[in-house]
C-alpha cells in the first residue's frame, strides 16, 4: 500500500483539517465531522444535508456551498456517519424552512439517518424530509434484497435539489424535485482494479490483470459478473444498454449524461468512455442535453468508471444550469 497518509486511523480527521484550510468559505465541525456553509443557517431557505462513509470524495463535502448542500457529514472510511452527526448538521442548517436529508440506499446509512430524523423531531421540532437514492441497475430491485444502491444519481440530485432550495421553494417542493431526479436516473459501474482501505492495507477484493468487475458498487461490493477485460467500446455498451433498458429512455428524451471516474482512472480515459457513450446514445436517438465528466463519486483508488443517465425535462435542466459554487462543482457565478 502506497498512500499519502500518516496514521491510517487519522485520514478522515486530517482530511477535514485540510479541507478547512483550503476552502476558507466553509466551516468544519471537527467533533461531529461536519463540513458546512459559512453562511448557514440561511433564514427561510430549506437546508439540505447529506453524508456517508468517507472515501467517495468529493462526495459529499465537495458539494457544500451555494446552490448545492448546506452541510455534509463524514463517516469513517466506507462506514455510515452516526445519528448525532446528522442531528448536529440538521440543527446547523435549519433556517426555519425545514431540512432535507439526502441518503444513499445502504442499510447503515438509511438506519442512521432515520434515527437522526427521529432525534431531530424530538429535540428541536425541526421538519425533516428524506430522499433515498437507489439508482444502481447492477442490483436487481426486489423485496429479497436491501434494494438498489445509491450511486451516481446522488451527485446530480444534490445539484438539482440544491438549486431548487436556493430558489426559495419549500421543503415539500424541494423533496419532490429530488424524488423526481432519483426516479428518472439510472447508473452502472465497472471496476478495473480493487480499492485499498487505508486501515486495512490490502486490496478489498482480488481482480486479475485481465479481468473487470461489471456492476461494481462504490465500496468494492461485487457486481453482476466478472468478465475478461474488453475494449472501452464494449464496456460502454455493457454499462449503457442495461441503463437504457431499465428506464424507458425513449428516442428524443434529452438526458444529462454523467461519466464518473471511481478514483484511479485518468480523465483522458473518461473522455474516451464519454465518446463511446455519445455514439451509443446517438444510435438510440437519445440526445445529450448536458454532460458531466470527472471523478465525483469515487471509491478511494479504484480504477474504473460509472455511467449515470438522467432523463431531464425543462425544469430539471433549468435547475441544473442554475449557479453553483462548491469546491468540486462551480459554474454560473
Amino acid at each position, binding site marked *: 500500500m502506497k498512500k499519502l497518509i500518516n496514521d491510517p486511523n487519522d485520514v478522515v480527521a486530517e482530511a477535514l483539517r485540510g479541507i478547512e484550510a483550503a476552502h476558507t468559505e466553509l466551516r468544519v465541525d471537527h467533533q461531529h465531522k461536519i463540513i458546512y456553509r459559512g453562511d448557514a443557517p440561511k433564514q427561510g431557505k430549506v437546508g439540505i444535508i447529506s453524508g456517508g462513509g468517507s472515501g467517495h470524495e468529493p462526495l459529499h463535502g465537495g458539494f457544500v456551498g451555494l446552490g448545492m448542500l448546506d452541510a455534509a457529514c463524514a*463517516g469513517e472510511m466506507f462506514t455510515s456517519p452516526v445519528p448525532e452527526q446528522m442531528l448536529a448538521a440538521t440543527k446547523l442548517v435549519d433556517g426555519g424552512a425545514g431540512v432535507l436529508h439526502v441518503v444513499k440506499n445502504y442499510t447503515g446509512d438509511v*438506519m442512521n439517518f432515520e*434515527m437522526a430524523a427521529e432525534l431531530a423531531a424530538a429535540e428541536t421540532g425541526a421538519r425533516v424530509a428524506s430522499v433515498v437514492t437507489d439508482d444502481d441497475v447492477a442490483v436487481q430491485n426486489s423485496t429479497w434484497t436491501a434494494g438498489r444502491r445509491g450511486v451516481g444519481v446522488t451527485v446530480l440530485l444534490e445539484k438539482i435539489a440544491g438549486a431548487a432550495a436556493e430558489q426559495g421553494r419549500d421543503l415539500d417542493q424541494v423533496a419532490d424535485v429530488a424524488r423526481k431526479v432519483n426516479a428518472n436516473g439510472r447508473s452502472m459501474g465497472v471496476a478495473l482494479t480493487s480499492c485499498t482501505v487505508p486501515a486495512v492495507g490490502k486490496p478489498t477484493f482480488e481482480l486479475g490483470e485481465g479481468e473487470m468487475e461489471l456492476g461494481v458498487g462504490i465500496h468494492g461490493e461485487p457486481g453482476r459478473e466478472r468478465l475478461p477485460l474488453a475494449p472501452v467500446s464494449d464496456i460502454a455498451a455493457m454499462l449503457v444498454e442495461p441503463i437504457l433498458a431499465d428506464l424507458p429512455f425513449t428516442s428524443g428524451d434529452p438526458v444529462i449524461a454523467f461519466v464518473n471516474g471511481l478514483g484511479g482512472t485518468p480523465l483522458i480515459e473518461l473522455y474516451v468512455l464519454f465518446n463511446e457513450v455519445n455514439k451509443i446514445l446517438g444510435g438510440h436517438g437519445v440526445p445529450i442535453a448536458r454532460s458531466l465528466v470527472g471523478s465525483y463519486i469515487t471509491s478511494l483508488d479504484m480504477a474504473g468508471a460509472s455511467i449515470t443517465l438522467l432523463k431531464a425535462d425543462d425544469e430539471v435542466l433549468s435547475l441544473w444550469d442554475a449557479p453553483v459554487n462548491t469546491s468540486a462543482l462551480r459554474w454560473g457565478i
Partner: protein
Amino acid sequence: MDENVTTAALEEWVRRFAHQVAEHRDHLTELDAAIGDADHGSNMDRGMKAAVAALDESPPATAGALFSKVGMTLVSSVGGASGPLFGTLFLRIGSTLGDAETTSAPQFAAALRAGLGGVVDRGKAGPDDKTMYDALAPAVDALDVALADGADLATGLKHARDAAAAGRDATTPMLARKGRASYLGERSVGHQDPGATTVALLLEAATEAPF
C-alpha cells in the same frame, strides 16, 4: 440464589460482552469481509470499548440508565448498520426495565423480547434473512420456554445461549436478504452471518454474568 438481578450484575453482563467482542474482533471482521464490508469486528469493538469507558466514568444506578447509556454510546460510536441495530436493542431493553433497582427473571425475559422488537422495527428483518435476528429470536424464545418450565434465570440463559449458537450456525446456508450481504445473492450462501455471531457472544456473556 436470589432471582432478582442487581444493576451491578447487569453491568457485568455488558462488560463480559465487551470482552467477548474484543476477543473475537478479528474473527467477526473476517466473517464480515466474506459477505459485507470487513468492519463489523472493529466497529463493534470500538463501540463496546466506548460503552465500557462510559460505565467506568459514571456507574449507572438503575438498569434503565445502564442500558440507555450503552445503547446511546453504540449508536453514536459504531456507525454502519450495527450501531443502530445493537444500539436499539440495548435502548429497548433499558426503556423496558426502567428505574427498578433489581430485575426479576420474567422482567429480564420481557426486556430481551422488547429488545428483539426494537431490532425488528429498525432493521425490518424476519426469520431466515441471514441477520442477527436469526440468533436473537431463538434465544428470546428459549429463555421464555425455560422460565415457563420453572427454570431459574441462569439456567434459562444457558438455554438461550445454546439457541443463539444454533441460530448463528443456521445462518451459514442461508441466502442473505437484508443488508449489504443481500447484494451477493447466491454468493452469500455458505458464510456465517457476523451479526448473528455477535448476538451469540452477547448470550454467551450472559451465562458468564453473576445472574
